[in-house]
C-alpha cells in the first residue's frame, strides 16, 4: 500500500524541528581536538593505516561519489573528507612522523568544524568510492572514523545529535518506546494478528524501528504476517525492539554500544538463535558487524536482515509466494545491506518469486548508487540540497530501466525516495520488499 503522503510530510516537518531539541555540546577548543585525536589513535590499525598510506591523490574516488558527480564540487572528493585523519596519521603515528611533523600542519579545532559538513552533510558512507579506488582505499570506513572523532569532539550536526541524545538518554527514538510499540501491536491484534511480545523463550527475536511504527506501518504488519505464516517461534521485545542506532549514525560510540547491548542482552535472554533486522539500512551493520566487536566476543546468535531472511526462506522453498501480475521493477540495493553487507541475491530471489521482472539499473549490485539520503543525512537540515542531488541521479538510474516501480529494503532509502518523488512529482512507485511479500501471503492468520 502506498505511504500516506500527508503523514509523510508531517513526519518531515517534525524532523525539521529536531535541531531545536538538541542539547548544546560545548567544550573548550583544545578538548575537542584532543578528543578527536584520541579516537583517531584508537581506530587506526594496520588496515586503515595501509589505506591512508596507499592513497596517491589520483582523484578517482570523486568520480564515484554521487555528490561530486552531481555537483562537480571538488570538496566532495571522498578522500578529501579524510584530510584531518590523514594528517593525524602522518604527524603522530606514521612511519616518519618526526619528519612529517616539520611539514604537516597539526589539526585545529577549526579544521574539525570545517570538516563537519564534509563528513556529515555530504557523505552517506555509501562506499562507492571505496570500490572505485584503484588502491583499494576503504574511504567509507574512514569517514566513519571521522564521524566518531567529530562526535567525541561534540560536533555532531544538531538534528542528528538531537536523536542521538534522545536514544542515549531515554532509549527512545522520536519519542517511540515500548508503549508506542504496544499501541502498534494492539492495532495489529485488533485486526486479527497474533503478535508474540516479550516471550521468555523464542527462536527468533524480531526487531522493528521507529520508522515502521510511525510511518511504514505496513512493513511491521508484513513482518508479523510472514513470521506467523512460516510458523516461526518468534517474539518482539518492548525493551529492545529498536533496530535504528543513532549512536552509529552520528558516530557516538557509547550510544551505539548501549543500543546494541540492549538487543544482545534480550536475544541471549530469550535464547534466540536469530535476530532479524527490519528494513533499516544501518541497523544491519550495527548488529551484524559492529556489535560483536563492541561486545568483546562473538555473538551466540545470527543476525539477518529481513530481506536476507525472506530470500533464504524463498530459496530454501519454505516460503511460497503468490505471484501477481508480471510487471517490471528495479531493485535498489541499500548501501549498508548490499555493498557493506553482501546481501544481493536474496532480495532478488524474493522479487522473482513474486513473479516480478527485475531490471537492473545502469550500475547495480556492488556499484549501485546511493539513494542520496542515507547515514543520517535525512536528519540533517543543511544536507537537503545534497539529498536532492542524490535523488536526481538515482532517478535517472531508475528511469533508465523503464521499470514502473522501485523496490528497496531500507526505510531510510525509502524516505529519501519519497521526499524526492514528492518534490518532482515522480510517477514511479516506491515499494518495500517486505510489504510486497506481506501482500503475497494470506493473512491475518495465527501461527499455523
Amino acid at each position, binding site marked *: 500500500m502506498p505511504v500516506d503522503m500527508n503523514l509523510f510530510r508531517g513526519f518531515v516537518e517534525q524532523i525539521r524541528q529536531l535541531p531545536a531539541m538538541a542539547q548544546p555540546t560545548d567544550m573548550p577548543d583544545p578538548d575537542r581536538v584532543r578528543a578527536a585525536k584520541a579516537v583517531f589513535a584508537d581506530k587506526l590499525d594496520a*588496515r586503515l593505516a595501509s589505506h591512508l598510506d596507499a592513497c596517491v591523490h589520483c*582523484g578517482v574516488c570523486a568520480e564515484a561519489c554521487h555528490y561530486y558527480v552531481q555537483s562537480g564540487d571538488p570538496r566532495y572528493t571522498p578522500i*578529501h573528507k579524510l584530510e584531518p585523519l590523514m594528517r593525524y596519521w602522518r604527524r603522530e603515528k606514521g612511519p616518519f612522523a618526526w619528519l612529517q611533523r616539520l611539514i604537516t600542519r597539526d589539526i585545529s579545532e577549526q579544521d574539525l568544524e570545517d570538516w563537519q559538513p564534509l563528513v556529515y552533510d555530504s557523505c552517506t558512507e555509501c562506499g562507492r568510492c571505496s570500490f572505485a579506488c584503484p588502491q*583499494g582505499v*576503504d574511504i567509507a570506513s574512514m569517514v566513519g572514523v571521522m564521524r566518531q572523532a567529530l562526535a567525541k569532539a561534540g560536533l555532531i550536526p544538531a538534528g542528528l545529535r538531537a536523536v542521538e541524545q534522545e536514544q542515549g538518554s531515554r532509549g527512545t527514538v522520536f519519542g517511540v518506546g515500548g508503549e508506542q510499540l504496544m499501541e502498534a501491536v494492539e492495532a495489529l491484534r485488533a485486526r486479527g494478528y497474533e503478535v508474540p511480545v516479550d516471550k521468555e523463550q523464542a527462536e527468533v527475536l524480531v526487531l522493528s524501528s521507529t520508522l515502521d511504527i510511525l510511518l511504514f506501518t505496513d512493513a511491521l504488519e508484513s513482518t508479523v504476517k510472514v513470521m506467523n505464516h512460516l510458523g516461526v517461534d518468534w517474539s518482539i521485545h518492548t525493551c529492545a525492539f529498536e533496530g535504528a542506532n543513532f549512536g552509529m549514525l552520528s558516530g557516538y560510540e557509547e550510544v551505539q554500544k548501549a543500543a546494541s547491548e540492549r538487543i544482545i542482552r534480550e536475544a541471549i535472554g530469550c535464547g534466540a538463535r536469530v535476530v532479524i533486522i527490519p528494513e533499516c539500512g544501518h541497523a544491519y551493520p550495527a548488529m*551484524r558487524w559492529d556489535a560483536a*566487536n563492541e561486545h568483546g566476543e562473538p555473538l551466540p546468535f545470527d543476525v539477518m536482515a529481513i530481506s536476507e531472511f525472506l530470500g533464504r526462506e524463498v530459496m530454501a522453498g519454505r516460503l511460497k509466494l503468490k505471484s501477481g501480475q508480471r510487471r517490471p521493477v528495479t531493485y535498489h540495493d541499500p548501501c549498508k545491506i548490499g555493498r557493506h553487507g553482501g*546481501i544481493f541475491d536474496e532480495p532478488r530471489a524474493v522479487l522473482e518469486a513474486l513473479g516480478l521482472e527485475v531490471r537492473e539499473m545502469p550500475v547495480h549490485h556492488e556499484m549501485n548508487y546511493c539513494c542520496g539520503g542515507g547515514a543520517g543525512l535525512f536528519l540533517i537540515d543543511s544536507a537537503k540540497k545534497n539529498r536532492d542531488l542524490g535523488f536526481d541521479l538515482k532517478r535517472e538510474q531508475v528511469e533508465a530501466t523503464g521499470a514502473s516501480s522501485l523496490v528497496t529494503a531500507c526505510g531510510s532509502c525509502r524516505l529519501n525516495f519519497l521526499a524526492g518523488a514528492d518534490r518532482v512529482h515522480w510517477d514511479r512507485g516506491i515499494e518495500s520488499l517486505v510489504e510486497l511479500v506481506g501482500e503475497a501471503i494470506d493473512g491475518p492468520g495465527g501461527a499455523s
Partner: protein
Amino acid sequence: MTVAELVDGPLWTVALTVFVAGVAWRLLVLIATGWKRDLSHPRSGSLGGAIRGVVGRFLPSQGMAGRLRLHLVAGYLFHLGLFALLFFAAPHVDFYRDRLFGFDWTPLPHWAFILAAEAAFLGLLMLWLNRVLNPVTRLISESGDHAASVLTFLVMLTGCLALARSHETLRLLHFFVVELFMIYFPFSRLMHSFTFLLSRAAQGAHYGRRGVRV
C-alpha cells in the same frame, strides 16, 4: 674525489641503503600498527577476498570506465611503460647484472624499449597535467605529489637524454637523479608501489568476509 666517483660510489651506497631501509621501515610500521580482530561471524573467507582485491582492482569497477578514461589510459600507459623500462631496458639489465644481482635476463629489443619510453612519457605527462588541471586533484594534491611526479619525470628524461650511451656526463646525470629518487622514495607517495598491495588486500579481505566482491 671527483663528482663522478661520488655519484658512482658512496652516493649510490647511500641511496640504496636509504631506499631499502626506508621501504622496510615504512612497511614495518604499517604492519606493526596492528590488526584489529573482527569478532563478527564471517559470511565468507577473507583470503579469497584479499586475493580478489589485489587482482580485481587492476580493472575499473562496473560503470566507472567512462568517467575514468583519462586515468585508465594515462595510468596504464605510464605504469606499463615505466615497468618495462625499469626492468627490461637493456642498459638497466646490464646495470642489475653488474651492480646488483650478478645475473641478467633477456632485455627488450631497442624498438620496444623506445616504445615503452614513449608510452611512459605520454602517460606521466597526462597524469600530471590531470593533477594540475582537474579541480579535484588540484584540491587534494600536495607538494609531495608534485615532487614525486617531477622526480619521476626527471629520472625518465635524463635517462632518455643519455640514450646514445656516448657521454659519461649524461649517464652520471641520470644516475644522480635516480639516486635522488631512491632517497626520496620511502618518504613519499612513491611508496604506493609497495603499499598498494597491502591496501588492496586489506580492503579485499574486509569486504570478502562480508561476502562482497570488491
